[in-house]
């Protein structure tokens, strides 16, 4: 176990290095690099630009600049927002809770509904329920999240008037019930695609387990079918789902970005788009790196958890 843990952590470190390299390349892709935002200032001269470049260390060779940037990144000095001068990490931190709340709620319902649908479909392979849910999942995967959001707002807020169309809470209220009411629409919209993914994978994993010898043995021993399903089949089919949870993180974060935009949810995605609009590159780059690091940590955690539950994983 210790060996697996070490090699898996080492792998993550290598990935982290490559991720930072890609991030730095994106940063330098801007026409004129990070200087482009100053070039637009009225009355900016070539001399002044050169002086800023020197102050920011942008006239040094690229590898040196990269190492410098990385060093700052590692020490937690991610620069300051052009918009309000606050440190980037602080800005991201103040939006983290909203995004985690949204993603957490969506994932909870997605796993609950998706896994049940997938198991039920696999146990009755080829039935009307199985066929319908399989096709429905494929259609759900084809609908852009933001469009489903627009339709949900139209139906549930504008037409029926049941739920608020946006924001995280009503100004002046902010009770738990108020938060919950605002959370329903965005989390359901974000959960839709996830339900589809989870049901598909859960169905495949269950089918895989059903055909294994130990299931036949359990049945042959005369265990009650319910016990075979719950303990032998579902228990084993759930293990790969832990890894899937990690692998789904990038999709989930991307979906959160779009959902937050449609529902004016004050999370990281909303912050990302606002910062893009203001050319606030330190925050944009910070969020890009932060989301990738979040994904790396999520994947590492998922793999280690799966390995600690299922000893077969450590062997390869």
């Amino acid at each position, binding site marked *: 176990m210790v060996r697996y843990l070490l090699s898996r952590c080492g792998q993550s470190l290598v990935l982290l290095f490559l*991720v930072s390299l890609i991030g730095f390349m994106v940063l330098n892709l801007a026409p004129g690099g990070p200087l482009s935002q100053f070039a637009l200032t009225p009355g900016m001269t070539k001399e002044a630009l050169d002086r800023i470049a020197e102050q920011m260390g942008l006239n040094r060779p690229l590898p040196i600049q990269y190492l410098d940037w990385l060093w700052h990144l590692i020490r937690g000095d991610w620069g300051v927002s052009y918009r309000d001068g606050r440190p980037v990490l602080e800005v991201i931190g103040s939006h983290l809770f909203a995004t985690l709340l949204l993603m957490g709620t969506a994932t909870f319902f997605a796993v609950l509904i998706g896994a049940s649908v997938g198991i039920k479909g696999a146990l009755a392979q080829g039935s009307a329920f199985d066929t319908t849910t399989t096709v429905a999942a*494929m259609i759900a*995967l084809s609908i*852009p999240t933001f*469009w489903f959001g627009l339709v949900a707002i*139209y139906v549930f807020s504008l037409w029926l008037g049941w739920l608020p169309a946006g924001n995280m809470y009503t100004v002046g209220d902010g009770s738990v019930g108020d938060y919950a009411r605002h959370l329903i629409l965005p989390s359901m919209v974000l959960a839709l695609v996830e339900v589809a993914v989870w049901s598909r994978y859960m169905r495949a994993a269950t089918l895989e387990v059903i055909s294994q010898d130990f299931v036949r043995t359990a049945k042959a021993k005369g265990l009650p079918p319910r016990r075979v399903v719950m303990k032998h089949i579902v228990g084993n089919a759930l293990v790969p789902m832990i890894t899937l949870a990690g692998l789904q993180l990038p999709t989930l974060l991307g979906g959160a970005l779009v959902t937050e935009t449609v529902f004016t949810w004050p999370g990281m995605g909303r912050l990302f788009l606002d910062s893009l609009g203001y050319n606030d590159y330190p925050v944009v780059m910070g969020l890009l790196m932060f989301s990738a690091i979040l994904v*790396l940590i999520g994947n590492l955690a998922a793999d280690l958890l799966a390995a600690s539950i299922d000893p077969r994983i450590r062997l390869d």
Partner: protein
Amino acid sequence: MIAADVTEPRSAPTRWWRSRSLRRFLRNRLALVGVAMIVTLTLACVLGPYLLPFDELYIDLRARFAPPGTGAHIFGTDPLGRDIAARLFQAGQISLLVGFSAMLMSTVFGTLVGVVAGYLGGRIGAALMRVVDAFLSFPSVFLLLSLAAFVSPSPLMITLIIAVTSWMEVARIVEANVRSLRERDFVLAAQMVGLTKRQIMFWELLPNVVGPITVAATLTVARAILLEAYISFLGYGIQPPLPSWGNMLNGAQQYLAQAPWLAIVPGVAIAMAVAGINFIGDGLRDALDARSDQR
């Protein structure tokens, strides 16, 4: 030219229209629905502009927010009084073209990386696949938007950056397939007769992974159309007045109460296109997967 002599005599190629895979595909009802959806959409987008009395850029301020079915405006008009049907078809040409071209670029690049990493293996293979993993660590919408904000938003650039964020799946699939074929007898034979690495990779191995590549490429078209819609909806993709399905939805939220058709019409088109391609991709996977015969 020993190599040429060895590679020449192949068994006569099975004619594709009589192959078992095609028969399996044609038996898949969902895949046929997908084909019908895509053919209908493509025809509508190509022929539609010639059949409609409106130009997609023609502004008629007296006819703003006309609901669907008003006069000749079958899908209604937008806040500037432009005909939505005309814009939808024009946008479809662009969205489908962007999706298809992005697929071509990412498939070529992904296949290249996958074949090289899978055949060479070792350190080079491992390094290439770690780069793939690193790209996969970024939420693609985040990476796409960062790139879109930094480059000029021409349709070609948008296509290029969608390709940059979509090649990894193909690379992974090709790498896994090539790696499993690497030790097979026909590869060993090719090595023995002295074929170069390049010949083995592209003349011996590549033809054997065409199936998985086709499936992955089909699904990449669907993904590319969705990604284009996402970034154009958010205002960083195809720029107006050039219409795309994504940017037609860009202002729709503002008028949701007043003119819901602004949001519904392009959204249905996107969902139809993506679902149709996904159905085809799924059908192809079942048809080309030899194992599905035994099920």
